[in-house]
C-alpha cells in the first residue's frame, strides 16, 4: 500500500476532531474538485503527452513523469476558493506531488493499488488544519483515460489518535495501465509555526523519465537551499511579490544498489528550508531577508549557527532539572574520593563520562520500570543533551571543553550543509591530552568515536568552553577524525575442536574476542544488566546497590524480591542469547550449549575487548564416506557475505561501515586411528589494496591448526576498486566449501 502522507508532514503533534460535519465535507469536496481540475490541467508535456515509445518493459514500473509543486503564499495572494475553505491565517503552504507511472508487473500493481491518507489533520492553533487531497486517473493501453471517483471509493477508519484515515483501493487498475495520481497537502499557518523542510531526491527505485519541481515562494518568506551530489540548480525568476524556482531533469536511472551506499552523498538531491516573517531568517551567521534566498550556504555560516545551538544546549544543561544530573555526578566524585584515592585531573573526564552514563542508563530508582532483560541494552541517549551535561559537569570541575562539529559519513558532507543538525556534536576536553566524548549508549566508551564520523574534516568551536586562556593548550580549529584501522575493529574466534566417539559431533571450546566498532552489537546481544550494573557501581564507588537499598527499605523491600525474580528471568534469556550467538556464527544451532562465560564485559576504554567463552557441540559438519569422514572445515568460519548477481557490476563508490578484521584460529584434534588428507589444499592468499583473505593450514602430530584472516582494509573505496573487493569476498565465500578427509589409517 502506498502511504501518501508525505514524510515532511508526518511531524504533527495535535489531534483531529473525530467527525467532520457535513458542511466541512461539502467544502472539502468542492476544494478537492477544484484542486483536481487544476492539477489535471497542468501544462506539462510529460503528463499530457507521455512518451510511451521508449519505456523499459523489463522494469517493474517506470515513472513517466514526476512533478512537485510547492506554494508558499501570503494569504492575500490565495484564491478566494481557498480562503472560503480554510480559516484565514498568515500564510498558505501547499505541496503537490504528481506521478505518472507505467505499471509493468503485479508487484507494481500491488504497490499502486491501495492508497491511505488523512483528509484532515488538526494543526496547532485555533481551528487550524491541514488537508490532503488526492486525485487518481488511469490511462488504459488504448489511451482512454478514466478518473477514479475518489470520494465514492473511499473507506474511512479512525486510529488511536482519533485521526480519520481514508483508504482507497484503486478500481480497474491492471498491469499495462498507467496510473496518474497526485496528492496535495495544504496548510494554513500562522507566524511562528514551522514550515517542514523539502527534500527533492533525483532518483527512485524505478527509472524516472522526467522529474520537475516548481516552487512559488512569496516575498514574505526567506528560503535556503543546498544542491548536493551534482544536482542541477533551480532556474530562478523574480516576479512581483514572489520568486519562482524551477527544476527539470530527464532520464534518471533506477538507483544502482542498496549495498554499501551513502544516499545523501551519492544521490543528487536538493534540500530546502523556508522561514516566514518580517525578519526573514537570521540565526548565527546566516541572514536571509524576506523575499530573498540563500543558495549553498558557506560551511562557516553553518558552523556559526551550530555554535549557537551548542551554547543553548549547554545553558539548558545547567537549568533546573537537567542540572540535577550534574550535581549527582559531582556527589559521586566526592564519595569516590572519600572512599578511594583522589582522582587526578587526567582521570576526571573519564570518571565523569562513566558516572553520567551510569546515571542515564544504569541507575535504578524505586519508580523505574523493571527492565533488566537484554532489551535494556538497546537504550540510547539524546546525544546533544548528554554531551552538554558532560560539558557542564566538567566545567564545574574546572575542566573546559570544546565542541567538535563532525559530519556523518551517511549524511550531507562539508560544502553541502544546510543546517546545524547536519553536524554530529562531539565533546573535546581542552586538556593537553584531549578526551573525546559522544553518542552515549549503555556500552559506549569514553574517548571513542563513532565510525560514522571517520575520515571527516571536523570543526572545533570554543563556544561552550569560552575564550582561550593563557594556560590552555593551543586551540586547533580543525581536526581530521581518523579512520580506524582494520585491526582495531576485530572479531577473533579461537576454537579447540575434538570429534566425539561416534564421529558425528564436533565438541567445540570457543573463545571470542570482539573489539572496536564490532564490540557494541555483541555486548547488546549478550550482556546482562545485573552483571554490568554491579561492575560499574563498584568501579564508580557507589556505596550501595539499588538491591541493597530496596532490601533495607521497608517501603521498597518487596521490590528487591521482584528484581530478583526479574534477574532470574533475564538469565534464562541470556542463555538463549548465547545459543543464538553460536547459531549466528555457524548457521546451525548447537546440539547443546554446555557452558558460557563472559571473561571481560568491556565496559570501559581501558578494558576495551569484549571476551567470552562458549562450549558446545555441533552436528552436520562431519560426513560419512565409506569408512572415512569428511569435515566441512570451510563452514567453521561461518556464513560469508555473498554478492548477488545483480550487485557484481558496480559503478558507484563503496561506503562500508568501517575497516575490519575477522580472525579464526582453529585447532582440531585428529581422532585416533585416522589420518588427515586435504590440508595442503586449504591455503589461500588473496591480498590487494582493498582487503585480504588468507588461510594457512598446518598439521603437527595429531593436531591440525588452521588460521584464517579476512580483512576489509578501508571504510571507503572508489568504485574502481570493486573488482579487488570481489576477489577478497569471493575467496572467502569459496573457502566455505572446503573439506578435509579423516581417512581410516
Amino acid at each position, binding site marked *: 500500500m502506498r502511504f501518501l502522507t508525505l514524510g515532511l508532514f508526518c511531524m504533527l503533534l495535535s489531534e483531529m476532531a473525530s467527525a467532520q460535519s457535513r458542511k466541512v465535507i461539502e467544502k472539502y469536496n468542492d476544494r478537492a474538485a477544484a484542486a483536481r481540475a487544476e492539477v489535471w490541467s497542468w501544462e506539462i508535456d510529460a503528463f499530457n503527452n507521455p512518451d510511451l515509445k521508449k519505456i523499459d518493459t523489463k522494469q517493474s514500473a517506470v515513472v513517466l513523469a514526476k512533478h512537485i509543486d510547492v506554494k508558499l503564499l501570503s494569504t492575500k495572494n490565495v484564491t478566494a476558493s481557498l480562503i472560503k475553505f480554510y480559516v484565514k491565517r498568515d500564510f498558505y503552504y501547499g505541496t503537490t506531488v504528481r506521478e505518472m507511472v507505467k505499471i509493468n*508487473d503485479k*508487484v507494481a500493481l500491488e504497490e499502486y493499488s491501495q492508497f491511505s491518507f488523512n483528509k484532515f489533520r488538526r494543526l496547532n492553533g485555533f481551528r487550524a488544519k491541514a488537508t490532503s487531497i488526492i486525485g487518481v486517473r488511469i490511462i488504459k493501453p488504448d489511451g482512454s483515460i478514466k478518473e477514479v471517483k475518489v470520494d465514492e471509493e473511499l473507506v474511512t477508519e479512525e486510529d*488511536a489518535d482519533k485521526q480519520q484515515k481514508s483508504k482507497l483501493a484503486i478500481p480497474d487498475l491492471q498491469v499495462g495501465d498507467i496510473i496518474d495520481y497526485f496528492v496535495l497537502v495544504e496548510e494554513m499557518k500562522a507566524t511562528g509555526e514551522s514550515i517542514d523542510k523539502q527534500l527533492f531526491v533525483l532518483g527512485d527505485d524505478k527509472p524516472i523519465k522526467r522529474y520537475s519541481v516548481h516552487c512559488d515562494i512569496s516575498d514574505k518568506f526567506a528560503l535556503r537551499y543546498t544542491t548536493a551530489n551534482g544536482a542541477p540548480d533551480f532556474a530562478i525568476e523574480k516576479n512581483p511579490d514572489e520568486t519562482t524556482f524551477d527544476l527539470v531533469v530527464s532520464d534518471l536511472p533506477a538507483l544502482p544498489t542498496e549495498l554499501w551506499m551513502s544516499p545523501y552523498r551519492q544521490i543528487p538531491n536538493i534540500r530546502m528550508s523556508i522561514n516566514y516573517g518580517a525578519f526573514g531568517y537570521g540565526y548565527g551567521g546566516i541572514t536571509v531577508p524576506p523575499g530573498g534566498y540563500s543558495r549553498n550556504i558557506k560551511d562557516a555560516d553553518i558552523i556559526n549557527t551550530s555554535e549557537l545551538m551548542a551554547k543553548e544546549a549547554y545553558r539548558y544543561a545547567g537549568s533546573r532539572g537537567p542540572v540535577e544530573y550534574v550535581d549527582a555526578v559531582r556527589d559521586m566524585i566526592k564519595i569516590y574520593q572519600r572512599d578511594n584515592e583522589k582522582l587526578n585531573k587526567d582521570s576526571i573526564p573519564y570518571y565523569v563520562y562513566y558516572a553520567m552514563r551510569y546515571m542515564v542508563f544504569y541507575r535504578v530508582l524505586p519508580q523505574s520500570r523493571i527492565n533488566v532483560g537484554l532489551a535494556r541494552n538497546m537504550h540510547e541517549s*539524546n546525544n546533544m543533551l548528554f554531551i552538554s551535561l558532560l560539558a557542564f559537569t566538567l566545567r564545574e570541575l574546572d575542566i573546559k571543553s570544546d565542541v567538535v562539529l563532525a559530519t556523518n559519513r551517511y549524511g550531507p558532507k562539508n560544502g553541502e550543509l544546510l543546517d546545524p543538525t547536519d553536524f554530529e556534536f562531539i565533546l573535546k576536553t581542552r586538556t593537553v591530552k584531549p578526551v573525546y566524548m559522544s553518542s552515549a549508549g549503555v556500552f559506549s566508551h569514553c574517548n571513542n568515536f563513532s565510525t560514522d564520523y571517520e575520515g571527516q574534516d571536523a570543526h572545533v568551536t570554543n563556544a561552550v568552553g569560552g575564550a582561550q586562556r593563557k594556560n590552555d593548550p593551543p586551540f586547533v580549529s580543525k581536526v581530521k577524525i581518523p579512520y580506524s584501522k582494520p585491526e582495531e575493529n576485530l572479531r577473533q574466534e579461537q576454537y579447540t575442536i575434538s570429534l566425539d566417539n561416534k564421529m558425528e559431533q564436533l565438541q567445540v571450546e570457543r573463545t571470542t574476542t570482539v573489539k572496536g566498532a564490532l564490540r557494541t552489537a555483541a555486548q547488546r546481544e549478550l550482556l546482562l544488566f545485573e552483571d554490568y550494573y554491579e561492575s560499574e557501581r563498584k568501579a564508580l564507588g557507589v556505596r550501595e546497590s539499588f538491591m541493597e537499598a530496596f532490601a533495607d527499605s521497608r517501603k521498597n523491600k518487596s521490590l528487591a524480591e521482584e528484581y530478583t525474580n526479574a534477574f532470574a528471568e533475564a538469565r534464562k534469556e541470556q542463555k538463549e542469547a548465547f545459543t543464538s550467538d553460536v547459531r549466528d556464527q555457524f548457521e546451525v544451532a548447537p546440539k547443546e550449549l554446555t557452558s558460557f562465560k563472559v571473561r571481560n564485559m568491556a565496559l570501559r576504554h581501558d578494558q576495551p575487548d569484549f571476551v567470552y567463552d562458549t562450549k558446545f557441540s555441533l552436528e552436520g559438519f562431519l*560426513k*560419512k*564416506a565409506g569408512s572415512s569422514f569428511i569435515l566441512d572445515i570451510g563452514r567453521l568460519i561461518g556464513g560469508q557475505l555473498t554478492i548477488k548477481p545483480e550487485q557484481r557490476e558496480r559503478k558507484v563508490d563503496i561506503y562500508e561501515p568501517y575497516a575490519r578484521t575477522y580472525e579464526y584460529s582453529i585447532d582440531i584434534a585428529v581422532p585416533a586411528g585416522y589420518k588427515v588428507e*586435504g590440508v595442503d589444499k586449504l591455503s589461500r592468499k588473496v591480498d590487494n589494496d582493498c582487503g585480504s583473505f588468507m588461510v594457512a593450514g598446518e598439521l603437527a602430530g595429531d593436531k591440525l591448526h588452521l588460521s584464517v584472516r579476512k580483512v576489509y582494509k578501508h571504510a571507503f573505496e572508489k568504485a574502481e576498486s570493486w573488482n579487488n573487493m570481489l576477489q577478497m569476498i569471493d575467496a572467502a565465500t569459496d573457502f566455505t566449501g572446503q573439506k578435509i578427509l579423516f581417512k581410516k589409517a
Partner: protein
Amino acid sequence: MAKICLYLCICYSILLSNLTSYAQTNSEKNVVIQSQEERYEFVVSNNAENPVNVKQSLKVAYACEQYRTTIPFAEFYDDKSKIEEVRVYVDNDRRKDVKPVFANYSIDDIFYSDAKICGLQLDLIKKGVETRVELEKTFFDPRYLTSIYFSEYYPVTSKVITIVVPRWMQIEMKEMNFSGHHISLNKTYDNKKDADVYTYTATNLPANEKDAQAPGPSYVYPHLLMLAKSATTPGGAQRYFNKTEDLYAWYHSLVQQIGDDEGIIKQKALDITKGISSDTAKIIAIYQWVQDNVRYIAFEDGIAGFKPEAAQSVLQHKYGDCKGMANLTRGLLKALGFDARLCWIGTDHIAYDYSTPSMAVDNHMICAVNYKGKRYFIDATETYIGFNQYAQRIQNRQVLIENDKSFILDRIPDCKYTQNTEVEKRTLRVDGNALVGTVQHLWDGESKEYILSQVNGTRKEKIDNALLRFLNDDNNKYGITNIKSSDVNNWNQQLSINYDLRYQDAVAGFGDDMFIEMDFRKELNDFTIDTTKRKSDYLFSFKHHVRHETDLDIPAGYKAELPANLSIDRDGYAFHLTYTQTGSKVIYQKEIIIRNHWLAKSAFKQWNEDVQLLNKAYLEQVTLNKK
C-alpha cells in the same frame, strides 16, 4: 528529596527517549489473571430491528507474580456491538486517569474491517496487588455472540462465566474442548427473571499458546459455542438460527439482494471465452481470468461482511473479497450456461461444520460448478492454483452450496499429496572437481502455487536473479545456465524449469578417491520440533511430495561405494533415500511425503527421531575409488 527524585525521573525520561520501545517482555509466569467474571444476559430491547440484546459485563483482575510490569488490555467490538463503560481499579482504587483508546482494529491482509478495539495500558504496580478492569458491552443481535472462550492470553486462576437465559429465549450452548480442563456447570433458575442461569466455573486455565503453524483456536481451547435459536419478545417471535436451514435462508436472502447485471457479465464472459469451444476450456478460462485480473482485497464490514458485492461492480473495480470474487465467477459461468453456484465454507482454521447453525461456521466463499455429473469447486482467491486442484485450507471441508430455497451439503475433495508433487531430475557427470549436466524440475498443485506466488511477488527486473538464487539455494558455485521454463502465466499445467548445471567444487578429491554428496537440497534437514517449547500440533502449509533423482556417471576407471538406504514410513509421512548402481551409473532417489499436513503433538517424538535419521543420511557421501 521527593521533588528531586521527580525531577530526575523527568530528566531520565528525556534522556531515555526510547525507553518504552525496548521494554522487557513478560515471562510466561509473570502475569496471571487471578479471577475473571463474565456475565451474559439476554434482554429485550426497544429497538425493533434488534429486539433482543445480550448484555455482557466483564471483570478481570490481573496480578504479577514475579515483578511489576505494564500490560496491554484489549476488548473488541464492531458495528453489531458496543462497549459502554470501562473502569480500571488498581488496588481497589478507581483510576479515572487510565483512559481507554477506541480505534479501528487493523488486521493484516484485511483492507477494511468494522472491527474496533478498546485498548488500555494496565500498570501492575506491585507483586500481589490487583489491577482490575471492568467493562460493559452490548451485543445488538444474539446471533453475533457466537462463542465464549474460557482461556486467555495469560493463565487464569479462576474464571466464572454466568449466562442468564430468560425462558423466552431459546439458545443452545455447546461445550467445546472441555476435556482435560477443570470446568464445572451449575444450573439454577431465577424466579424473578424467569430465567435459567448457567454458571460455569473454571480453574487453573493455561494461557493460550503462541505457536506458529498451529490449529485454529476453536480446535484447541475450551469454549461455549452459542447457538441462538429463537426468541419470543413483546414485539413478536424472533427466529434466529434454529437449524442450518435458517442460516442458509439468511445467507440466501442476502444473495437475493445482490442485483447482478447479467447483460454486462454475459458480455464479459463471451469476451473471455472468445475462440474457445470446449466447455472445460471455457470454465478454466473464466477461472484463470478471475484469478489473474481481480485483486483480492478483504472487506469485513457489517452486513457487507456477509453479502457479496454485485458481479458487475467487482468486474468494474477489478478487486473484491472472496464473496465478490465467487459471485463474479458464478455470474460469468452462469452467463455461459454452466450450472454455477455460490458455496459458503469454513476453512481448516475453523473446527465446526454445518451441523452447527452459526455464523462462526464459515469464513470464506467459493463457487461450485456442476458439469457432466461432476462438481468442481473454484476458489479464485487462490491466485495460482489450477482447475480441479484445491488448497489445503479448503480440502475436505464441508461446503454449503446454494440450491435456490434449499441447499446442498458437500465436501471439497481431500486431495492426496500427489496433487503437489515436486520433481527434480539431475543427470550429472564428473568434470575435474565439478559436477556437470542437466536438470529438470516440475512443480504441481500447491508447490507450483508457492513458486508462482514468489515469482509474481518479485519485481520484474529482479525475477531472473531471484529465480536463479532460488534454484541454486544462494550457492554461487551451483552454476546455472540456459534456463528454460514453461509459461509462468499458465497455472493450469505443471510448471517446468530446465537448465544446464556446473556445480563447481562438488567433488571432493583426496588422493585416488572422490567423494560426492548426492543431495543438494536436503529438505527437512534439522526440522526437529523443540518439544520443550512447542505446545501445539504442527500444521504444514500443505501436503508435500518431493521426488528427486540424481543420476551420476561413474568415471572410467572408478568403482562406486554407496551409502546405506533410508526408508521410514509412518502414517502421516515417509522418507525414502535410495542409492543404486545400474551399469556405470549411480542413481540416487529421494522421496519425501507429507501425507497428512497435521502433525499431532503425540507424534513429535517419533518425528524428531526420524528427522535425526534423515539428517544423518543426508551426511553420507558416495565414494568413487580408483579401481
